């Protein structure tokens, strides 16, 4: 009896712990493994936005493993990530893949000294102050457990798995609710003026 009671008691202690551990593991499986971060929740089925050149993010970011910030170099310094200047593209493509039609089209723009007229996919209203710089600081540069090589996982919070896309698709809602829940989960600022200033 004594032993039996002991078993009952230990099960009673173990059960919630087991449930807790299971939950912990399942949540770890559902969400990306960026340390010290709870990714935002929510999805959005974006439209196909045709671009002047069907830029293949997959070739650059997945196959060739180029860091997002190599091209979107302003993300860590400014509120905008910035479309890379044409000169940056030509830095490689004056010698690489010059026989491909997309590169030939790019070269035409370059020679005309005109940037390709890209269509905007991700945007927030003018009354929203969103800054890439602060978000990268919080999740990447001040996050000692995340090497900067893995920055694309943080980018994916709001932009989705761009490395699996050609041209970008909007796959996250980027609405105020989306932002606020993430701010709550990650203890981001909740002051109205942080974003509406």
């Amino acid at each position: 009896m004594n032993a039996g009671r002991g078993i009952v008691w230990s099960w009673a202690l173990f059960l919630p712990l087991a449930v807790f551990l299971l939950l912990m593991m399942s949540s770890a499986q559902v969400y990306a493994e960026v340390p010290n971060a709870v990714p935002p929740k929510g999805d959005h089925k974006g439209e196909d936005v045709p671009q002047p050149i069907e830029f293949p993010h997959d070739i650059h970011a997945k196959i060739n493993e180029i860091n997002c910030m190599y091209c979107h170099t302003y993300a860590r310094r400014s509120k905008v990530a910035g479309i890379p200047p044409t000169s940056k593209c030509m830095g490689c493509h004056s010698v690489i893949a010059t026989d491909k039609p997309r590169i030939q089209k790019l070269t035409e723009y370059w020679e005309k000294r005109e940037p390709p007229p890209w269509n905007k996919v991700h945007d927030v209203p003018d009354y929203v102050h969103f800054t890439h710089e602060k978000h990268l600081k919080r999740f990447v540069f001040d996050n000692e457990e995340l090497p900067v090589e893995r920055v694309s996982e943080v980018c994916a919070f709001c932009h989705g798995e761009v490395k699996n896309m050609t041209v970008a698709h909007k796959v996250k809602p980027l609405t105020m609710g989306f932002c606020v829940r993430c701010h709550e989960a990650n203890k981001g600022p909740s002051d109205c003026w942080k974003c509406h200033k």
Partner: protein
Amino acid sequence: MSGNEINRRDFLKVMGWSGAGVALAGCDMPTTVTLEEGKEKVTSYVLPEEYVIPGVGVYYASTCQQCPAGCGIHGRVREGRFLKVEGNPDAPLNHGKVCQMGQAGVQGHYNPDRITKPLIRKGGALVEASWDEAMDLIKQNVGAESTLKGERFAWVTGTVSGHQAVLLQSHLDAMGSTNHFAHEIVNNAVSQAVNREMLGEAQPAYRIDEARLIVSFGADLLGASQSPVHFTTQYAKFREAPRGVLVQVESKMTLTGANADLWLAVRPGTEGVLALGLANALLVKHKRDAADLPADVRDVIAKYDHDTVQRITGVAGDRIVKVAAWLNSQSPSLVLAGGSAEGQAHGYDTAAAVMLLNIILGNIGRTIVSSGDLPFAQMEAKSGNTAGLLALADTLDKGGLDAVFVYNTNPVYTAPSHLNLAEKLSAVPFKVVFAQFPDETAMRADVVLPIHSPYEDWGTHVAGYYGNQISIQQPLMEPLNPTTRGFGDLLLGMLKMRGVAGYADFEDYYGYIRQAVAALPAEMKADAGSEDKYWQQVLQRGLIPVQRKPRSLTAKAIAVSLPDYAQDSEYPYHLVPSPRLGMWDGRYANIPWLQEAPDQISKVVWDSWAEMHPLTAQKLGVMEGDVIKITSDQGAIEAAVYIYKGIHPDAIAVPLGQGHEKEFSRYAKDRGVNPLKILSPVREAKTGELALYGTRVKLAKAGRNEALVKLGGTDQQMGRKLVATVTADVFRRTEGGQDVA
């Protein structure tokens, strides 16, 4: 909602459904997406500048050109676009502050009504033309080969200074003309004339920050004045502990009046009498030493005893006694005359009576000190006034001009109807206007040259007040319109066109300014190391400090002669055409921000109004919003009544700024009236300035009501205790408050 009518019930239905949608959709399903994808373009650089980061602003120092004060500014530029004006903290004139007009410069720059192409009059109408065509016309009419010479040519400008003034003078010299008419409605020309006679310097510096008591006779230091931001920063120091006391004497409350500790409504035009009354009290009651005053001055002062002054000015005797006692006990003090005191037929004597108080109180050399002389006299500001406008009209009357060049002033709008300026100008065979906007004067030109906005152009300026620096104006961005040109470049072009020696080598105005800075004395650049580094330093700071050579001011008391107050039975009221920080003289009616910014006193927006005392309103039987007809001997205007106690019952104030012709701006058209149009031909007797406040009017009901659009519904607290008050006795007892006297 046109084209997509939704009535209120449908709207509520839609609201209900989407509300339900939110409830059903659960926590993490957003129901709306705010922005469309793929509708906007996003443009990258082709080749980025090294220091440019998209989204991060860069600040360039420059000089504000919104009014002649010449404050230092920082312009924020992002992605090549000029976005915002801030004050330049390195500028000793404005200490990093800038006013609403300075802020609103952005909306002038991006204004949709800017002129972008040269216009030439063909068959009676202005039509777009090429620069070549426009410049050929100018060459034909005023070029080296033209027959036009001498006094038949004139420049009409606002206040000009710096190298602009230098080049303009060179052009006049080349034309052999001395006709430069500089015109500003907001000016202190009468005070300058008085200062020149009594102090030996036209524009001394006022040490507002040093004064313990300021008595201002209509000087709107904080509003429409020579240097509103400079005066305001000094005023802030004046109000620091021990707090200075401000007394404002005027017939219509200005922004400065609204900030005063004691506001005295004086019968319009009797400010000088009150000044002499105070002088009388100081000499008789307070036994101030009058030994240095000439006998004739003492005789004049003796005439203005307490009762006489009370009778003429309408100011209660105890107030006169109180202010005199303050003046006697608070030292140093500062007594100033401003627009409404000067703008009378006897404005000179009024301002002189005010200056007399400073002499009696020993303020000269303490709160009124020498500004000194700029080592580069040719760059000193040539301040505009109304005598310039009248002189232009007189010259035109005599048929004396064959060609007129106009820059940075709009005399057709500001000139009273009795001058018939539009008509007289049209008789001039060749009129060129350098303009940003199709204002009244530009629309009457034969050639309109579209110039850069001040944020696209180079320049150097010396402030008319506190000109202790050469202020640098540099472009904050590339010109918005590739077809506008810089005023300096055009001036240089005119000089080259006349074949004036010494200018051929300068490719553009920038080159000229660089050369001028390079030619500055070496000791000014000692710290910089090299010429290039010095230039970079100058651009970064936005100014070159200069040491002015101080003079010693005289304190020459002069006997003044002021008229007794005369009633006018036909025109019993005094018209106060009131300027304000914001609309200024009407040049900013095309800027929506400034139209939207409420008048500091009435809080009215986007319109004209007629401000009157409740007693006057009662006499006329009008309520707020009732339209009245204001008639002078020169015509009539109509405006809705605004009733306020901050005005003398004999005065009716109509703000400057509205009543523009429709071509000027989409934002200003069909809006309000221009009170300058009905001014009587009264001139200040000694300076020949237009007496802006010297017009008598009669009032009549127009028989309709137009609700005034204004912030705030009532000026009463309605028992709500919005502002808690205690009596002076309680304040003294419980909070250690002290009366200044």
